[in-house]
């Protein structure tokens, strides 16, 4: 009986793992210098928004080395390491970043392309996009809750605030991520007409499968939220759904 059980176990073990053999793929590897561990190397395909979500990413080891296998194509690389530890989001002063490297052409031959990446500390403008904090002293505030399709609060979503109706470019302001109660509160520098969207990902157009929702009243065009100087608007709630 024992032999039989062990036999079955071994058989299943090999059956389970046989599908994971990977074909020979080319890879890009290198070192981030000065050597920095736990930095993200973002890999973008040609034509992708380099400030949006990457095609894929890899984290450097403690010596700053990284290596990633990629299917054939043209790629751009950029290294970033945020003090906050977050994977995505605007860079702040003191965060580490590199210039964009590429295009790097990856072929199907199984070759290893060596590319070291020089990084430096971000200086100058405080943030690429203003992250509005709920602790902000200013009194012009829009707040509300983010819900999912079942009416449950959504954690770790952000509200993106735009000052133009197309909502197609980078947002003017972005809230901090929601907590378990799904609540957001965003302080704005002045009153105006704003257009709001909530989403679980940061940057780039929403993709199939992402959670995304705009503040609107059942229209395709977003509904503007009019907030006056020093006004606190509450219950500007947004429901997010999968992008189909």
């Amino acid at each position, binding site marked *: 009986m024992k032999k039989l059980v062990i036999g079955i176990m071994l058989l*299943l073990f090999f059956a389970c793992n046989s599908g994971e053999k990977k074909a020979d793929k080319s890879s890009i590897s290198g070192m981030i210098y000065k050597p920095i561990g736990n930095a993200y190397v973002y890999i973008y395909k040609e034509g992708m928004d380099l400030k949006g979500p990457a095609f894929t990413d890899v984290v450097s080891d403690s010596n700053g080395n990284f290596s990633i296998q990629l299917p054939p194509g043209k790629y751009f690389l950029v290294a970033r390491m945020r003090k906050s530890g977050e994977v995505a989001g605007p860079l702040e002063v003191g965060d580490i970043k590199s210039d964009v490297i590429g295009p790097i052409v990856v072929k199907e031959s199984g070759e290893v392309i060596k590319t070291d990446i020089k990084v430096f500390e971000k200086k100058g403008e405080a943030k690429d996009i203003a992250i509005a904090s709920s602790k902000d002293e200013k009194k012009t505030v829009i707040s509300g809750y983010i819900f999912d399709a079942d009416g449950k609060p959504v954690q770790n979503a952000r509200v993106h605030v735009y000052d133009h109706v197309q909502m197609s470019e980078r947002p003017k302001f972005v809230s901090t991520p929601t907590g378990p109660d799904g609540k957001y509160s965003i302080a704005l520098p002045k009153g105006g007409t704003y257009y709001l969207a909530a989403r679980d990902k940061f940057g780039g157009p929403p993709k199939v499968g992402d959670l995304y929702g705009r503040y609107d009243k059942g229209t*395709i065009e977003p509904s503007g939220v009019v907030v006056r100087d020093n006004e606190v608007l509450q219950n500007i709630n947004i429901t997010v759904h999968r992008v189909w």
Partner: protein
Amino acid sequence: MMKRIALLFIFFLIASACSPKISEIDVYQSKAKEGDKGAIKKLIKLLEYPDEEIKVKAYSGLIEAHHDKKGFIEDALISMLKERHDDATREFVIGLLGKLKSKKSVEVLKELGKDKNFKRRYVVFSAFGEIQDEVVVDDVIDALSDPLEDVRKYASRALIKLGPKAIPKMMQRFPSANASVKGYLIRAFGELRNNQPEDLLIKELDSENKLDVIWALGKLGKEKSLPLLIDLTKSTDYRVRIQACQALGDLNLKEAIPALKVALNDREVLVREWAARSLELLTGERTLYRDEKGNLALPYSIYH
């Protein structure tokens, strides 16, 4: 004891052997693109898998499957809807039927749109917006009074996507609708930008949907709406004045210019800002307004 541990281990291994691997799904996806029926079947089956990441991958693979297999996918998905499935699986299946613009699925979807136990029925109306079959117009209008807000919103968007063919039914049902349903219809009329309901909307100018009516008249109105909107730039309610200034820009009739110039001196800064924006639309010239500090400023451009 040994036997129990072994059995547990076997159970674990069987479970993990049955778990799809992302790399396997990638293979199904590329085979489905070439029209491989077996791979398509696997992807359809994976829509039932509880992990949302797997569902999304399967869904994406099916969207990109070879167009010759669309009928096969549609039939399989419709059969799935007739079986009992959890809400998340149904949501993906219906989202996919919408993406495939499946007219065959309309009757099944109509039933699901009325099923109050199906909490994610908003997706039915999202799909109706994609399928654009006018046989659903009445059902979609019915859904404007659904207890769930996201269902009402998706129904309203479906009417907009259905286009002008939805307008006669919308106008027919408008007078007997309650205020909330009228609100959705008014906003949908506005986005449809078809002038037929102008008179119906003008009658609603003093209703609780006043702001939406003003917005919609800006989108679809003609000369008849002009004096009414000009008059509203003098309202005691600043929100009405903002909306009227915005609507006069949308209406795009040069006769509104003098009224908008008066609104440039409004006591409310947001009215002044909208007056400047609309003047720019009508004159083609950048127009300054007095900001909250009394300085002359350009409004930020909402219509990039």
